[in-house]
C-alpha cells in the first residue's frame, strides 16, 4: 500500500494499541457470559430446527425451558448430551419432545462429565465438519471461477418476498453484480427468535430464515454457473439473534455477514452486554466459516454529520478490528465499513471524501473495506442521485476500495427496483473502467487539503480512542461518542437473555472455531 497521505506511523500504532486495550477490557468480562441466542445457536449447530405447534422455533422452546429452570448457565450442549444418553434420541427428537411436553428438561439426570463429554464433543465436531465442508465448497467454486476485479459490486434486494428476491438476485448477478445482500424486514432484529421457513411478507426487506438463505443461495449458484463468476450472498448477522444467524449462514454457505460489534446497541437499542457477548460468538462462527464480515460504521454518518464526525468512523474501525481479531477473524475477513455521506452541497466535499476513503485504505491495508454510498443527502431527484453515486464510485476506484455497496438512484424513495440495480451496476462499471488507473496516476499535494484532512481525522480518532481507553467503551456509548446516539449501560432490549456461565459451563465450539484461526499463514498471521 502506497503511502499517499504522509501519515505518522507512530500515531497509527498508538491508535491500534489503544483500541487493543479497549477490546481487552471488554474481553475481561465477555467470556464470563453466555446468552439465550448463543445457546440457541449451539442447538442449531447440532441440528435442531423447525417450530412447535404455536410456530415457536424449537431452539427457542428448548432454551427457554432451560432458562426457566436456571439450567442455561451450564451450557445447552451438556444438557443435550445427557438427554441423548438418557433418552437414546437425537437432538431434533429431544427438542420435539420438549416442545410436545413429553420431556421435562429438569428430568434429565445429572451424569459425570466423562459420560457425556465425548458425545458433546462429537456433536460439535460434526457441526464443525459441516461448516468446513461449506467453506471448502466456496473455496473450490472460487478457485474455478473467473478472477475477481475490485471493487466488487454489491447490491441489495429488498422486496419482502423471498421468491421475488431470488429472481432479482439472479438478475442482478447476470447484470454484473458480484455480491447480493437480501435486506431484512424492518422488525426482525428485535425478534428474539429466527423465523422459520420461506417468507413472502416483509416491510423494507425479507426475514432472514434458513430456508430463505437456501432459496437465494440456490438462485445465485445458478447464476454462478451461467456467468462463470462467483457470486457472494450476504445477510444480516445482527439484532437479538446474531449467533443463530451466523450458524445458519455458515451452514448455508453465505459469504458475507453484516456483523458489527456496536450496531445493535446504537441503532436497535439492544442491551450493550448482550450485543458484545453475541457479537463475539457470532464472529467466531463467521471466522471459522470463512465469511467476510461487514461492520457498520457507515451508519454513524446517517445520524451524525459526516464531516464533523468522520473521525468517529476511524476510531470505531480500530475497535471493530481489535474485537474481530479476538474472535479469530483475519484482516482479510474484515469488511470495515465507511461511507460517502458528506453533504453534497459542501464546497470541496469530494476532496474530503477522498481523504477519508484513502485514510481507511491506508490504515487497514489488508481489509476488504466496505464502502457505503450516499444515502442521507440524496433526494427524489433521481438524476442528481445517479450522478452523486457516480462520484462515489469515482472516489472508490481512486482510493482502491474493495466492496462497493452501489448507490441506488431511488435511495430517497423506495427499496430498489430491478432497474435501479441495473442502472447502478452500469454506473459503477463505467466509472471503474473509465478511471481504472486514476489512483496510480495521481499524487496528493503535500500538506494540501486532502492530506490535511486525513491527518486531522487520524489525530482526532486517536484522541477519541485514548479517551475511550480511559473511560471504557460502555461509558463512551453512554456519552454518545458514536452516531450521536446515547445508550445506557443497563438499558436496551434483550438483557434478560444474558446468563452468567456456571463453573461447569460446557460449549466446545469456541475452542474449535478459534483453533483454526490460531493456525498461521506464510506471513505468520492467523489464518
Amino acid at each position, binding site marked *: 500500500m502506497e503511502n499517499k497521505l504522509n501519515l505518522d506511523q507512530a500515531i497509527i500504532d498508538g491508535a491500534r494499541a489503544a483500541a487493543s486495550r479497549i477490546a481487552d477490557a471488554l474481553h475481561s468480562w465477555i467470556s464470563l457470559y453466555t446468552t439465550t441466542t448463543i445457546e440457541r445457536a449451539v442447538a442449531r449447530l447440532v441440528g435442531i430446527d423447525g417450530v412447535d405447534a404455536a410456530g415457536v422455533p424449537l431452539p427457542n422452546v428448548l432454551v427457554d425451558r432451560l432458562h426457566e429452570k436456571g439450567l442455561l448457565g451450564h451450557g445447552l450442549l451438556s444438557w443435550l448430551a445427557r438427554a441423548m444418553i438418557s433418552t437414546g434420541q437425537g437432538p431434533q427428537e429431544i427438542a420435539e419432545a420438549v416442545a410436545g411436553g413429553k420431556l421435562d428438561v429438569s428430568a434429565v439426570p445429572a451424569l459425570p462429565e466423562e459420560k457425556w463429554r465425548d458425545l458433546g464433543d462429537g456433536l460439535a465436531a460434526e457441526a464443525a465438519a459441516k461448516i468446513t465442508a461449506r467453506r471448502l465448497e466456496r473455496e473450490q467454486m472460487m478457485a474455478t471461477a473467473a478472477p475477481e476485479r475490485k471493487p466488487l459490486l454489491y447490491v441489495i434486494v429488498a422486496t419482502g418476498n423471498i421468491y421475488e428476491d431470488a429472481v432479482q438476485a*439472479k*438478475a442482478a448477478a447476470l447484470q454484473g453484480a458480484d455480491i447480493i445482500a437480501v435486506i431484512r424486514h424492518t*422488525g426482525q432484529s428485535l425478534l428474539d427468535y429466527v423465523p422459520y421457513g420461506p417468507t413472502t411478507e416483509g*416491510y423494507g426487506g425479507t426475514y432472514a430464515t434458513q430456508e430463505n438463505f437456501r432459496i437465494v443461495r440456490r438462485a445465485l449458484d445458478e447464476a454462478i454457473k451461467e456467468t462463470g463468476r462467483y457470486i457472494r450472498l450476504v445477510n444480516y448477522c445482527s439484532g437479538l439473534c446474531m449467533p443463530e444467524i451466523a450458524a445458519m449462514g455458515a451452514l448455508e454457505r453465505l459469504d458475507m455477514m453484516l456483523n458489527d460489534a456496536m450496531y445493535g446497541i446504537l441503532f436497535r437499542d439492544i442491551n450493550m452486554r448482550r450485543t458484545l457477548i453475541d457479537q463475539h460468538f457470532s464472529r467466531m462462527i463467521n471466522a471459522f466459516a470463512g465469511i467476510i464480515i461487514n461492520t457498520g460504521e457507515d451508519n454513524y454518518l446517517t445520524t451524525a454529520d459526516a464531516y464533523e464526525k468522520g473521525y468517529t468512523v476511524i476510531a470505531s474501525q480500530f475497535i471493530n478490528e481489535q474485537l474481530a481479531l479476538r474472535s479469530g477473524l483475519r484482516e482479510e475477513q474484515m469488511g470495515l465499513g465507511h461511507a460517502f455521506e458528506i453533504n453534497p452541497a459542501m464546497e470541496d466535499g469530494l476532496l474530503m471524501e477522498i481523504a477519508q476513503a484513502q485514510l481507511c485504505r491506508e490504515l487497514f491495508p489488508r481489509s476488504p473495506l466496505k464502502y457505503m454510498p450516499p444515502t442521507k443527502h440524496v433526494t427524489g431527484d433521481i438524476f442528481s442521485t445517479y450522478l452523486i453515486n457516480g462520484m462515489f464510485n469515482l472516489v472508490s476506484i481512486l482510493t482502491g476500495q474493495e466492496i462497493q455497496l452501489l448507490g441506488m438512484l431511488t435511495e*430517497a424513495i423506495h427499496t430498489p*427496483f*430491478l432497474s435501479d440495480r*441495473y442502472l447502478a451496476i452500469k454506473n459503477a462499471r463505467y466509472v471503474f473502467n473509465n478511471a481504472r488507473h486514476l489512483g496510480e496516476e495521481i499524487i496528493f499535494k503535500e500538506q494540501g487539503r486532502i492530506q490535511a484532512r486525513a491527518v486531522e481525522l487520524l489525530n482526532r480518532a486517536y484522541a477519541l480512542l485514548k479517551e475511550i481507553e480511559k473511560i471504557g467503551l460502555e461509558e463512551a456509548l453512554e456519552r454518545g461518542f458514536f452516531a450521536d446516539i446515547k445508550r445506557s449501560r443497563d438499558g436496551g432490549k434483550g438483557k434478560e437473555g444474558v446468563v452468567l456461565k456456571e463453573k461447569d459451563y460446557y460449549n466446545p465450539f469456541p475452542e474449535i472455531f478459534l483453533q483454526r484461526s490460531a493456525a498461521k499463514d506464510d506471513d505468520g498471521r492467523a489464518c
Partner: protein
Amino acid sequence: MQVDLTKVKAYGDTLNDGAVQLSFTLPVPAGEEAREAARQLALKMGLESPAVTEMADLGAGFSFFVVYGRCPHSVDYTAIKIPKREHEIMSFDEVNEFVRRELKKKVVVVAACTGTDAHTVGIDAIVNMKGYAGEYGLERYPEFEAYNLGSQVPNAELLAKAVEHGADAVLVSQVVTQKNIHLENLTELIELAEAEGIRDRMLFICGGPRISHELAIELGYDAGFGPGTLPNHVASFIVKELARRKKQ
C-alpha cells in the same frame, strides 16, 4: 407565451407540447417485440407518438425502457384547492412568548417513531435539543415539555405514555412506506385512540418523507408535516391550534 391555467399541460420546449419522460421495466426479454410492448404501454397511458429511446437487457427475462412522448392530458390548475395548515409560522421566541401569553401553561408533547420503523433522524430533528438546519428542537423550547420515546415504539405504548404525561400533542413519525405500512400504522394509532376515548383530548400530528398535511387530515390527524419541516413550524401549529381550541 400565455398559459391557460384551466388546461395546464406538460412542457418540453414549447407551450402545450405535452412532453413527458417515462422509464419502466417489463418482464419480457429485450427485442423488437419488447420495444413495441413498451410503446404500447405508453400509448395506453394516453401518450402520443411515444419514442422508446433506450431499451436495455436486464437479464433473466426483463428489459428496461426510457420513453419520451407527448401527453395530451391537461389539468385544471385553477380548480386545485389544497387543505393548508392555516396558522402562520412563528419563530422560537414568538412561540414561547405566545405560550406564556395565550396558553399560560407548558405544552406537553410526546413523540415517537412507531411500529417497526427505526428511522429516528426525522423525529429527532423536530424534537431533540439540537433541532434541524439551525432551528432548535422542541426540547429546547422553555415553554415546552417534550418526551421523545425513540423508535420502534408500539402504538399502544405511545398512547399510554401520552396519557401518563398528560400530553397536549402526540407526534408520530413514519419513514418506511413499503407496501403502505405507514398508512396502516397511522390508521391503527387513531383507531386505538378513539377506542380509548382520548382522540380529542390531544392533538395528533404525524410526519415523514411521504406525509402531506392533506394525507394526515384524511387519516384523521390534526396535521401532517413532510420533508423540510422545521421544529418551529410544528411548534407554531401546536400552540396556535391549542389556543384556538381553548377559545372555543
